């Protein structure tokens, strides 16, 4: 028999202190959405546990009574992964905010899932260490959410994603069982469940502890800024740097609209007449960085850069980055709303993808600013729109969907680092065949046979895909007929 809301609240109050169970509408509103505010829903009830035992009890109770559970960290996710379930429990891990142990010798830190990404680096700074993945929301986002989304950041070309920088997880299964995945070493026995859990978007278990790997803070980091009068030349320059055997710590590209918006906002001294700029950060030992700077400067110049600057001081370096890091809010200043996309493409396809985006931009009458993790092909087109204009959000979402399908068509993916969540669930039908989606559901069943963890996210049902296909394939025409497909 299905329990009533009152019974569920009562049961949770039996597990948690009274003020750790929220159910009045005004208390639920802060949880109605994550960083993707276009989707909003109130949960039935919010649970705020502060111990692993409480999480186990809550999940065990939900499992017994078929109640959906959506785990949530800081709620900064950009794909609606933490969008609540109206009939379910929103499990906030905000109270799990302790760094439990730092082993500076083994370069590991054991932390609770609600610890903020940047707080880890701050906690270990005194040992000369840091945690490498640095999503742009790192001031606010939590490590538990980072694991759930396999977050990246501007430095992942060289230092990898979350999956490369963690070594142990403690998770609670939907049945309430506590499992340790991974180990104290660099691998563990059996299947690589650590990789499977990372990026699983809260679908397989609830993360209650994370052991991260730490790296020594590089002796020196230096950033260069290069301006180009042509986006294609900037793209080629990226390939030339890598062809020279140099893996920069960060390699970012911005197009004209993004450059101007950022410059107006933070006055980073960007060349506003450029069609594109590249920011290239090199790090390592002092002598290594010196050698690479000379090489990269020559490559940029030979690739047709109209201007190459090297930050002379650490302050100037941070100024160079400031514009890039503020690109999203900067675009937010020039448009009432913007919609951030997250496709990844093989880098060499950049010119045609940018051209297609420009064509779509014209077709939809919506401007696009492009910010690009150029080194690893992760593209963040920002579609500028006004939610107050009737129908504009819908047009924006359709436009965004087409950009993602374009990414798939050139051999890329619909999401590089933001996750599928609820936002890109339809595009999963474009990227994967039915048999692959069925395989994903089988993986989900291996952990959560009742489908209670984050229902409706990350992997679409075949039924949903059939509806989406019926909606989107007109006259059997393929979109982007000019593109080679593989």
């Amino acid at each position, binding site marked *: 028999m299905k329990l009533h809301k009152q019974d569920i609240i009562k049961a949770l109050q039996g597990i948690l202190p009274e003020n750790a169970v929220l159910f009045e509408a005004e208390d639920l509103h802060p949880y109605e959405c994550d960083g993707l505010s276009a989707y909003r829903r109130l949960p039935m009830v919010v649970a705020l546990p502060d111990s692993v035992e409480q999480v186990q009890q809550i999940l065990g109770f939900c499992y017994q009574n078929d109640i959906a559970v959506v785990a949530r960290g800081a709620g900064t996710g950009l794909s609606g992964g933490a969008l609540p379930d109206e009939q379910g429990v929103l499990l906030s891990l905000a109270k799990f905010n302790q760094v439990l142990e730092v082993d500076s010798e083994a370069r590991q830190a054991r932390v609770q899932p609600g610890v903020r990404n940047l707080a880890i680096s701050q906690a270990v700074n005194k040992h000369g260490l840091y945690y490498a993945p640095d999503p742009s929301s790192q001031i606010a986002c939590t490590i538990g959410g980072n694991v759930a989304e396999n977050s990246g950041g501007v430095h992942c070309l060289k230092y990898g994603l979350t*999956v490369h920088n963690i070594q142990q997880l403690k998770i609670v299964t939907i049945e309430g069982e506590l499992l340790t995945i991974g180990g104290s070493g660099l691998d563990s026995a059996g299947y690589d469940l650590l990789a499977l859990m990372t990026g699983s978007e809260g679908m397989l278990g609830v993360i209650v502890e994370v052991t991260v790997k730490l790296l020594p803070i590089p002796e020196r980091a230096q950033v260069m800024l290069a301006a180009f009068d042509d986006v294609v030349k900037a793209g080629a320059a990226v390939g030339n740097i890598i062809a020279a055997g140099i893996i920069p710590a960060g390699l970012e590209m911005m197009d004209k609209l993004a450059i101007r918006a950022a410059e107006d906002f933070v006055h980073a001294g960007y060349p506003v007449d450029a069609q594109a700029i590249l920011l290239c950060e090199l790090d390592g030992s002092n002598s290594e960085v010196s050698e690479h700077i000379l090489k990269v400067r020559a490559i940029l110049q030979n690739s047709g850069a109209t201007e190459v600057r090297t930050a002379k001081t650490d302050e100037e370096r941070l100024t160079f980055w400031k514009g890039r890091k503020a690109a999203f809010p900067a675009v937010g200043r020039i448009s009432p709303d913007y919609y951030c996309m997250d496709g990844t493409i093989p880098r060499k396809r950049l010119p045609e993808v940018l051209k297609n985006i420009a064509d779509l931009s014209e077709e939809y009458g919506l401007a696009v600013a492009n910010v690009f993790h150029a080194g690893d092909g*992760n593209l963040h087109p920002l579609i500028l729109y006004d939610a107050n204009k009737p129908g504009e959000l819908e047009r924006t979402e359709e436009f965004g969907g087409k950009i993602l399908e374009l990414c798939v068509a050139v051999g890329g993916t619909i999401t590089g680092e933001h996750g599928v969540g609820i936002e890109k669930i339809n595009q999963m039908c474009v990227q994967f065949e039915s048999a692959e989606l069925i395989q994903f559901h089988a993986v989900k069943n291996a952990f959560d046979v009742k489908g209670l963890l984050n229902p409706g996210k990350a992997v679409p049902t075949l039924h949903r895909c059939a509806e989406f296909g019926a909606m989107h394939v007109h006259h059997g025409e393929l979109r982007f007929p000019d593109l080679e497909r593989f």
Partner: protein
Amino acid sequence: MTDNDISKDLQQQVAQALSSRTALNIQAGNSKQFYGRAASGDVLDVSTHRGVINYEPTELVITARAGTPLKELEQLLADNNQMFGFEPPAFGDSATIGGTVACNFSGPRRAFAGSARDFVLGSTIINGKAEQLHFGGEVMKNVAGYDVSRLMCGALGTLGVLLEVSIKVLPRPETELTLVQELDTNASLAKVHELARQSLPVSATCFDGHRLHIRLSGAEAGVAAARKLLGGDTLPANDNFWHKLKEQQLEFFKSGGDLWRLSLASNGPNLGLNGKTLYEWNGAQRWLIGDDRADVIRDRAARHGGHATCFRSQHDTEQVFHPLDGGLLAIHRQLKRAFDPEAIFNPGRMYAEI
């Protein structure tokens, strides 16, 4: 390089095995037959499924059919001044990329650059329903769907037949040299931990019981500066130490007895086991040749959050890999069922239960 696509053929063989409920023993180069529990079933020969499907040096990725010899791929990468960052051991000339990924074998660079699993970006597999499925891709950042490609790494073929793998590659370091210092175990481990906390171009460490070997890789100036800072003798460039280490051809590996691989925190203590130990990966991978009982070895490793694998044995071993706890074993069983419902792929090769 031979270019031959037998994926349809393989799929058909899997379909037949499925309908007759016949177990399949997936094999390519057969260079890793020694590893894992005994194989059984009809051989599914992947060795002629060969060739590079896509290699774009500036995209830092290569996609190849699973039966492509590792040697050929490494040569192709070297011709383009690139390499596999995980420095895979081959254990024989016939080794293939598929087998390497299925075993998740990684060499001396692993602690500094990552394992095979870290570099795998995508894969095409045949699952236990005889379906061809594609996961991941050729791009470095991709979070669409569960990371099935990495799940295949180290699964010893028990979840599916690898058809193609896409792997991130790295530029070859501009220069490389190895420093050697005479130190004892404790001093060696202290030294590597001290170095690991600094911004130095170290790409491998090994303590063989007598001497500490440190490899430096990278830009000329960076390596030269680190060499000066570290001191010690430089090994002749033709010494091939790291190659012999990863292929287990050093003197250490030549003595008889079971070879155990212990994986635990780099600063985990001396486990007090009988026999001799060689330390790699700053201490996170330890090779042990000794005569302690398996349960004693496993218990010591587990006590420090690690695990122990009976890597090579003179006799058939019932338990090669570290036993799994109840909850984890249940998930392994369920995952096995999710990919291979009729248990036709390499049954019992990893654990008796899967």
